[in-house]
């Protein structure tokens, strides 16, 4: 019995030891729980939220672009896309191959997706195609279990209803490239497009809007369970252009008849651009999706540079269209007057150099009006020698040449107006008197864009106001016409009147260089000036043998230019045309300009205020209504 009592005592003691151990272990567990939930609580809370909350970027809708009548030039059309998330696809290529059996998918597309998958993070969806039909979507959805990682969604695709006609002006959007990466979360959206050229590029930020954000709760496989928070995206701004879409389409069609040409039609008083185009062109809709390498190569290889907007970035010798500037410089310097005459015997001698007039045998006695009308070179050779290059350059710049005009297109180029200081600084040589002679007829170093030539013409015929070109009617551009109108340049009205008379005769006098291109309907008559820009020096041999310019290789032929205005009294519309290698201004550029000016006058876009613009101050087009 005693032994059993010992036994019980030992048991009791040891039972308490065991109970103590149990209590201690419970304490350890409670302590660990408290440590995890109190000390580490915040850290684990963050980790838990990271687990469950995904940030989703909500795409903003890009602002539309419309013409002055509200006709859409760039819109967002509904489309369906196929996306793949590499992380969820066991084998991307296998999924794509299976997809290829269901929808049309080129080898190029597959390779492009595979290439992109190698570059981006595994959880970022990659756009496979954005051109699915509803039938394709249905096919994919049904087969989704066999297509790991694949998903479809409905999106918006930028569409340009005017196609080729607005390719350069409106531009196009394209995928975000490495250089474009910024803070904007929208840039990370799959298939997000930003403006690459033209208005799309210039006002990209305005039209892009701002991306929204949604916090969504996701489960362990990433499926969305519910939305926790949402900041709506803000859609982009709609851009209204001063363009007349139909006139633009007409211009593009007319330009396309030449191998390579560009033109501008603008308002002489306000500077609003009605049409601005470059040919050859391309369909910008091809750029909003993945374009084929072959198509791209073809565009790049074309000698007529279809991707370039020649109306603002083509720089040409202004040739005889520059003669108005030379004349104005001569009149202002007092080197010539209304009645000063010169005798053209077909060439002009300066020292030992001989400079030829375009007309063999010469024009005989010419005054300033005749000099413009018949485009006599010798008259201007003589004038320029008296005036000097610096005064000519000064007038040229005053009229808008040789500088950027703050136009809305980033592709705008500045051209070049040379003078003595420029040559010394840039080439490091002294200016030669012969170079002044060459410059007087718009050759040599002189370079001007079709847009600049249009502005130059506008300033000549609008009474001498320093008009600048602009194409967005929303007050976005910095060079929109001031409320008080464009500043006066201080040119004598008599001088301007003389020049205008000369330009009138170029077209409407039977001895004018563009008489053959005059308007059939006298009510739609216009004035202007032809120009023929030398691309290659005419050798003595060619001059003697009388090789015709059209017999040369296309690349060696002269550029053809024309600047014009209409109507003859109180001009409102300005046209500037350059036909690359078009042989002669009167031959190709003048007829083209006639067609543009006639069509413009018929449509008379300037008579209607821009769509959606309030009357009065915000309508610069009205401010300068001719009296």
């Amino acid at each position: 019995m005693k032994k059993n009592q010992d036994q019980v005592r030992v048991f009791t003691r040891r039972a308490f030891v065991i109970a103590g151990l149990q209590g201690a272990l419970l304490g350890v567990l409670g302590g660990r729980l408290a440590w995890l939930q109190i000390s580490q609580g915040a850290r684990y809370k963050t980790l838990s939220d990271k687990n469950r909350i995904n940030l989703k970027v909500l795409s903003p809708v890009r602002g539309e672009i419309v013409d002055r009548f509200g006709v859409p030039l760039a819109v967002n059309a509904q489309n369906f896309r196929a996306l793949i998330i590499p992380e969820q696809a066991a084998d991307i290529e296998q999924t794509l191959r299976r997809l290829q059996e269901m929808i049309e998918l080129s080898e190029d597309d597959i390779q492009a997706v595979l290439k992109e998958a190698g570059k981006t993070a595994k959880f970022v969806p990659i756009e496979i195609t954005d051109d699915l039909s509803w039938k394709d979507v249905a096919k994919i959805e049904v087969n989704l279990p066999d297509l790991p990682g694949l998903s479809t969604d409905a999106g918006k695709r930028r569409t340009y209803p005017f196609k080729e006609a607005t390719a350069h002006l409106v531009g196009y959007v394209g995928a975000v490239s490495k250089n474009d990466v910024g803070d904007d979360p929208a840039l990370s959206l799959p298939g997000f497009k930003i403006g690459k050229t033209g208005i799309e590029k210039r006002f990209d930020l305005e039209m892009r809007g701002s991306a929204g954000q949604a916090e969504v709760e996701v489960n362990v496989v990433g499926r969305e369970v519910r939305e926790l928070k949402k900041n709506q995206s803000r859609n982009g701004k709609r851009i209204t252009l001063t363009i007349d879409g139909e006139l633009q389409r007409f211009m593009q069609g007319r330009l396309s008849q030449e191998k390579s040409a560009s033109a501008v039609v603008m308002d002489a008083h306000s500077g609003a651009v009605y049409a601005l185009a470059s040919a050859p062109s391309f369909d910008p809709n091809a750029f909003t999706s993945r374009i084929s390498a072959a198509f791209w190569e073809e565009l790049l290889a074309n000698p007529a540079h279809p991707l370039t907007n020649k109306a603002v970035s083509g720089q040409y010798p202004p040739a005889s269209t520059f003669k108005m500037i030379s004349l104005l410089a001569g009149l202002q310097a007092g080197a010539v007057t209304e009645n000063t005459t010169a005798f053209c015997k077909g060439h002009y001698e300066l020292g030992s150099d001989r400079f030829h007039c375009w007309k063999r045998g010469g024009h005989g006695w010419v005054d300033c009006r005749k000099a413009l009308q018949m485009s006599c070179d010798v008259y201007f050779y003589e004038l320029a020698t008296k005036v000097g290059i610096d005064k000519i350059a000064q007038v040229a710049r005053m009229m808008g040449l040789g500088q950027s005009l703050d136009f809305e297109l980033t592709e705008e180029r500045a051209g070049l107006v040379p003078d003595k200081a420029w040559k010394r600084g840039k080439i490091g040589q002294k200016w030669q008197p012969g170079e002044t002679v060459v410059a007087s007829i718009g050759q040599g170093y002189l370079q001007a864009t079709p847009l600049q030539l249009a502005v130059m013409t506008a300033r000549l015929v609008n009474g001498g106001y320093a008009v600048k070109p602009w194409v967005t009617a929303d007050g976005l551009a910095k060079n929109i016409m001031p409320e008080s109108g464009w500043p006066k340049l201080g040119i004598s009205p008599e001088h301007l009147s003389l020049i205008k008379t000369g330009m009138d005769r170029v077209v409407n006098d039977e001895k004018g260089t563009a008489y053959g291109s005059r308007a059939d309907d006298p009510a739609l008559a216009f004035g202007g000036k032809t120009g023929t820009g030398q691309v290659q020096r005419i050798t003595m041999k060619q001059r003697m043998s009388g090789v015709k310019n059209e017999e040369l290789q296309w690349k060696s032929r002269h550029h053809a230019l024309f600047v014009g205005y209409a109507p003859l009294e109180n001009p409102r519309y300005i046209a500037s045309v350059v036909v690359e290698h078009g042989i002669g201004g009167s031959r190709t550029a003048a007829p083209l300009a006639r067609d543009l000016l006639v069509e413009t006058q018929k449509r008379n876009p300037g008579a209607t205020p821009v769509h959606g613009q309030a009357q009065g101050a915000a309508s610069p087009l009205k401010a300068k209504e001719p009296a």
Partner: protein
Amino acid sequence: MGQSIRLHTDQNMFEKLKHLNWGLILLITAVSCIGFAALYSAAGGNFSPWASKQMMRFGIAAIGMVIIAMIDLKWWFRLTWPLYFLGLGLLIVVEIMGHVGMGAQRWINLGFMQLQPSELMKIVIVMALARYFHAATIDDMRRLPFLVIPTLIILAPFALVLLQPDLGTSLMIVMVGAAILFMAGASIWLYIGGGVLALASVPVAWHFMHDYQKQRVLTFLNPESDPLGAGYHITQSKIALGSGGINGKGFLEGTQSRLNFLPEKQTDFIFTLWAEEQGLFGGVILLMLFGLIFLYGLLIALKSRQNFARYLALGLSINFSLYVFINIAMVMGLIPVVGAPLPLISYGGTSMLAALIGFGLMMSCSLHPDTKVSR
């Protein structure tokens, strides 16, 4: 004699029911209800598929528990050896089936439930050792030859369970066995020696471990090394626990478990779910309920007047507490992931049945303090 016993039992049916440890039953029910709530939440606010089934099992097992408690302890004393050998036999059957089938087979399909003999073995081994030590004296306990048979009693099921292979359960069998030897008065030196031996055998054990077992140990030692692979369970479990904070995320609001970041949330990781939703408050309350159950076991053992009852009650209580400690320590990242359920709470029939059988026997000890047990 048999006649009188039956008469005696009949007369005391209501008496026995009255003297049943209602406090313990209340505690068990409370803990089980926490389990039902957690299972309801694990299913996203649904009784199916887990909570309803678990409640049914609890109901059936609770009836079994009361029946076991009412059966006179002497019958359990007498049934010990047959039950022990039946358990061993079932383990062998499972072993053979495992060889016939594929991989590690641990259960026998009884149709209405899948029986894991190793779970029952954990109870039966407590009975066997309690019975063996029932008449032992302090002097007996100090004689090493006397300890050969209990060692064999432990080692036979240990070896069979280890072969399954189920390292966790086999180690628990050894721990329970060692605990009963300890309470029966085995020398402290045995434990010190055993501890040293265990440490020395770690490299050897490592050599014989399966790859997945090695991986579990390695992952335990550094779970962050592979948070999406083998360390996923531990990492996600700790995130769930920690993010619960003091007050918890609220009932049905446990994001980790509801969004499936937490694996096996209805079985091994159910404590995590509970503590994520109910926070430190809920976690500590559950720990305290478990503590009270342990205390109940201790009290029954201390109040017993026979060695068999003492060893049985305390041994079963230790058995139960081992489950609790191992499971909770595992989900908190204190020990490697071993795949042990949390008794009364984790979804699973065998686990619930084993726990309630244990409590039934414990209560039988309490209900029959004066019954004459004999060899």
